[in-house]
């Protein structure tokens, strides 16, 4: 028998209680691994090289706009194959709770740019030829029970019409989807020209351009050329990957890192209270045993360290399992999240930080019981 096996045996004297505590700590560290992935993804830049599609957006704020006239200048940049554009329309269908992205786009250019999306040729023709036409993802049509030919009312919040009305209506002319094993689209698409002619303000502008490059390995250089083109203009740009743009958009909602850290803080505070309570309860039941250990020669320090060791082992084992599970789940989710936030993986830095946090958690939850174990007096405890 070793000290570790003594600690292990003590931990599992109440198997169910220990397993439940272990699972709760494990889940906290699983969450820690996943949220740390998000924080790290938002904290580090996305590598531009290797992508064939870039996004050119206003340099300083996503609420700024770019003139449509930029399009021709971007098309002329060496290395650029095609350019299209989109706007963030906002608005809602029937109820503000029915939220989904809506972009005014140029139909043929958009689907040429996003060639991975599948749309029937006749529906694409209808989209291109219908002024108030719209196409939606198959999933969205199923969700709201829309069929081709339906008229879909959208209430605008950003863009009223020239007559002041916020009521926009579109004719559904088709649906589109991504290949079955790919992340499915969620965006309601309608004609840019319709929006441009009907909007009360911002006509002739776009929110961002999507740029296809000839050589993915030269994507970084192309991005620098585009941004250099507008550096001195009234509308400077920032060109990056689609994933980087998604992250910028998420960051408009708030400080993602701070929010994730807040969630983690709440989770770990709860786990700390839960585990500390369990450890204290376990200790109270064993006071006579601790007195016996002291009787046969264990010092106050060694008994105290034994109890602290139990908390440390519990938290480290649960932490390590949680981090391992987090790494596995991250690997599974990574392909699905790549387009949204870029790299999603559990780094060695997260593992080291997690193990350090597990050790700290063990020390904090074990400190009280260890101190109490140290204070146990043999004569009093044995008399009880």
């Amino acid at each position: 028998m070793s000290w570790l096996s003594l600690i292990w045996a003590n931990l599992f004297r109440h198997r169910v209680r220990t397993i439940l505590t272990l699972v709760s700590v494990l889940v906290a560290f699983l969450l820690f691994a996943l949220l740390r992935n998000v924080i790290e993804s938002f904290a580090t830049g996305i590598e531009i090289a290797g992508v064939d599609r870039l996004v050119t957006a206003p340099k300083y704020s996503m609420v700024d706009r770019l003139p449509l006239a930029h399009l021709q200048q971007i098309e002329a940049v060496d290395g650029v194959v095609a350019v299209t554009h989109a706007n963030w329309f906002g608005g809602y269908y029937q109820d503000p709770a029915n939220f989904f992205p809506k972009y005014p786009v140029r139909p043929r250019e958009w689907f040429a740019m996003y060639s991975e999306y599948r749309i029937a040729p006749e529906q694409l023709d209808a989209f291109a030829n219908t002024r108030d036409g719209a196409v939606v993802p198959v999933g969205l049509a199923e969700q709201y029970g829309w069929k081709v030919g339906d008229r879909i009312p959208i209430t605008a919040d950003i863009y009223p019409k020239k007559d002041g009305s916020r009521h926009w209506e579109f004719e559904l002319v088709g649906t589109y989807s991504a290949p079955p094993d790919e992340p499915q689209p969620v965006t309601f698409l309608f004609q840019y020209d319709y929006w441009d002619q009907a909007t009360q303000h911002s006509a002739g502008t776009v929110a961002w351009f999507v740029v296809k490059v000839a050589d993915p390995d030269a994507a970084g250089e192309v991005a620098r050329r585009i941004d250099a083109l507008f550096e001195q203009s009234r509308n400077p740009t920032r060109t990056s990957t689609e994933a980087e743009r998604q992250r910028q958009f998420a960051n408009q909602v708030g400080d993602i890192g701070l929010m994730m850290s807040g969630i983690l803080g709440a989770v770990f505070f709860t786990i700390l209270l839960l585990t500390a309570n369990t450890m204290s309860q376990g200790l109270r039941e064993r006071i006579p045993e601790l007195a016996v250990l002291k009787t046969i020669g264990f010092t106050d320090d060694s008994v105290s360290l034994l109890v602290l060791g139990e908390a440390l082992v519990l938290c480290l084992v649960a932490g390590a399992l949680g981090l391992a599970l987090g790494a596995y789940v991250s690997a599974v989710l990574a392909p699905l999240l790549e387009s949204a936030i870029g790299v999603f993986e559990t780094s060695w830095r997260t593992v080291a930080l997690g193990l350090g946090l597990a050790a700290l958690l063990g020390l904090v939850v074990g400190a009280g019981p260890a101190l109490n174990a140290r204070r146990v007096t043999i004569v009093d405890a044995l008399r009880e």
Partner: protein
Amino acid sequence: MAAMVHLAGVSKAYRRGKETVQVLDDLDLDVAEGDFLALMGPSGSGKSTLLNLIGGLDHPTDGVVEVAGQRLDRLSASALARWRARHIGFVFQFYNLLPVLSAVRNVELPLLLTRLSRRERRQRALTALDIVNLADRASHKPGELSGGQQQRVAIARALVADPSVLVCDEPTGDLDRESADQILGLLEVLNRDHGKTIIMVTHDPRAAEHARHVLHLDKGRLRRLTAAGAVAGTVSS
């Protein structure tokens, strides 16, 4: 023969609220090496307190406690713990085994404090279990053993570090007569064949008959020595 236990002018008082309770009062006692001494007396007479002082579990309020040549009243708590590990083996009425450990691991516990290798520790624990005739129950947990068997495991644990003195507090108090006789026979063997000095608190006169000497305590003072034995022991109170 030299005194294994020497107590001179020992007093012990406890505070109970505002009241001071005098448990032992100016007590002198010498127990020779190799003696088997039974301590008897009514409840509250101070038997367990005396045992605690001899076993180094408690400090006297006044007086000298010397066991195995060591003045215990001068040792710090940690030094006393280390001393206990080397010199004293404890046997309790309710066995006080760790329920999560097998018999052999319970016996091995005191050896965790030594520099012995894991293999040596296990070997010694098995030898101690063999002495109490329980080697075949080595892997059983306390809950799987009878009361008598648990007490034998507790005796093996008390023996395993080869202490000078065995301190037994009502070792048969929770056992049926047959198991009690086995335990008392075992203690006799340890005293006679292995030379262990044994000090045993008991309420049971039949248990006391197994000792070489019997001391009676009453109201914190030693009253009389009722059994004569081959080993010299002097009592004064």
